[in-house]
């Protein structure tokens, strides 16, 4: 192990040693297989964190890190984006959204353009701000765009429950919430077409669901490890996964034990269960229709469901035929394989969501690779 100098923290020394281990083991495994190992970082925040930390680049000689369907905005179908954006053009509506969505291109507009054109669009950090906005603006029809995965669902549920408790009649939520395990199942349904050697599982979806929620992956014979997001977490997740691959251990490991429990956070899941139910089928970008892969509001909360209460006339969705976001978020291609990447599609002028979402793979590659 490295000797600690006066200038280095314990974590830095550990990270350096761990990086060397990852290098040695990764190279050995790639040599044995006669090819690079292919690992999917399911979570978009992981894609960004591995790229920004420099790890993606450092391991690129022997590891092919692929993005997965784990950036909520990127996996949202163009048709759903169009419907959400059309709400900003309705009379008296005030859209409350996470900032991530502001510049994402729909077929015809963005929320940013709608705002510039006079539409009322407000950015929130916590969904609870939408309830405050509704209370302060009784004449406005406040619609919170509940976009995200299992991590965000309990916060969205708590927000709807608070609107109910405060008896607000001018608050709605537009649910665009997707579930990660069914998306991984969908990827594995046709065998293992992308030839994956391992999965890095999303740390914060697992915080809510528990690492056990992913145990079904083991049946595919592919090892998987839950990882966190700080430098040591990223390396420890990767090293644990490489060890599983070396040992041919098709199991689900947890390298984020100080946050993620096997059984997850039951209180958070109970909150979800009070407001949401799994819908029969959900449409994903890149993956098509996946059964039981999204949440909608329970019938009891139908009056809060903006998807049912605000029906807008939206033309058929249009996407640029050259954009390969759908392939990027399913691990079938890397951003560099896209003909538009860094040419016609850049963060200041994005063609697809993967370039402009803060968790999008194309944006991460543009900035850090």
């Amino acid at each position, binding site marked *: 192990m490295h000797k600690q100098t006066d200038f280095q923290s314990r974590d830095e020394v*550990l990270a350096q040693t761990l990086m060397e*281990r990852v290098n040695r083991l990764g190279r050995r495994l790639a040599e044995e297989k006669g090819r690079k190992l292919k690992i999917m970082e399911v979570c978009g925040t992981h894609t960004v964190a591995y790229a920004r930390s420099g790890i993606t680049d450092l391991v690129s000689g022997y590891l092919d890190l692929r993005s997965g369907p784990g950036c909520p905005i990127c996996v949202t179908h163009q048709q759903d984006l169009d419907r959400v954006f059309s709400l900003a053009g309705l009379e008296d509506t005030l859209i409350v959204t996470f900032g991530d969505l502001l510049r994402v291109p729909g077929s015809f507009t963005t929320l940013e353009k709608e705002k510039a054109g006079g539409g009322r669009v407000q950015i929130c950090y916590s969904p609870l701000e939408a309830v405050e906005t509704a209370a302060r603006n009784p004449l406005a029809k406040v619609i919170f765009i509940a976009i995200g*995965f299992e991590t*965000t669902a309990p916060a969205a549920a708590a927000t709807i429950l608070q609107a109910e408790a405060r008896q607000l009649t001018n608050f709605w939520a537009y649910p665009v919430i997707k579930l990660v395990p069914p998306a991984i199942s969908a990827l594995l349904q046709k065998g293992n077409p992308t030839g994956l050697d391992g999965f890095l599982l999303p740390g914060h979806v697992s915080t*809510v669901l528990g690492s056990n929620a992913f145990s079904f992956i083991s049946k595919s014979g592919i090892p998987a490890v839950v990882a966190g997001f700080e430098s040591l977490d990223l390396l420890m997740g990767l090293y644990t996964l490489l060890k599983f691959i070396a040992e041919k251990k098709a199991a689900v490991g947890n390298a984020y034990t100080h946050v993620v429990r096997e059984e997850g956070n039951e209180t958070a899941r109970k909150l979800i269960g009070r407001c949401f139910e799994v819908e029969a089928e959900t449409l994903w970008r890149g993956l098509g229709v996946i059964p039981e892969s999204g949440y909608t509001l329970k019938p009891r909360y139908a009056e809060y469901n903006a998807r049912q209460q605000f029906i807008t006339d939206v033309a058929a969705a249009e996407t640029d035929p050259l954009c390969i976001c759908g392939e990027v978020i399913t691990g079938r291609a890397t951003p560099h394989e896209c003909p538009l990447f860094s040419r016609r599609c850049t963060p200041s002028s994005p063609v697809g969501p993967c370039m402009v979402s803060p968790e999008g793979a194309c944006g991460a590659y543009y900035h850090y690779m």
Partner: protein
Amino acid sequence: MCLGIPMRLSSIENNLMATAETMGVKRTISIQMVPGARVGDHVLVHAGFAIERIDPAEAAERIELLKTLLEEPV
């Protein structure tokens, strides 16, 4: 979007809301998903909600495990 920020609870308003801070930044957050949370606890905050307590014993144990792991021959 599934970004989580570790923060320390500095005061508790009621069983729903608390003040949390990290690196000098203070935020009012919801603690309804971490029942029993106390001042001084570290929590992981996502979209204004603490979604889990960070277990300090596990964090320390993990560092020990990591050190042992790195002593092993490759």
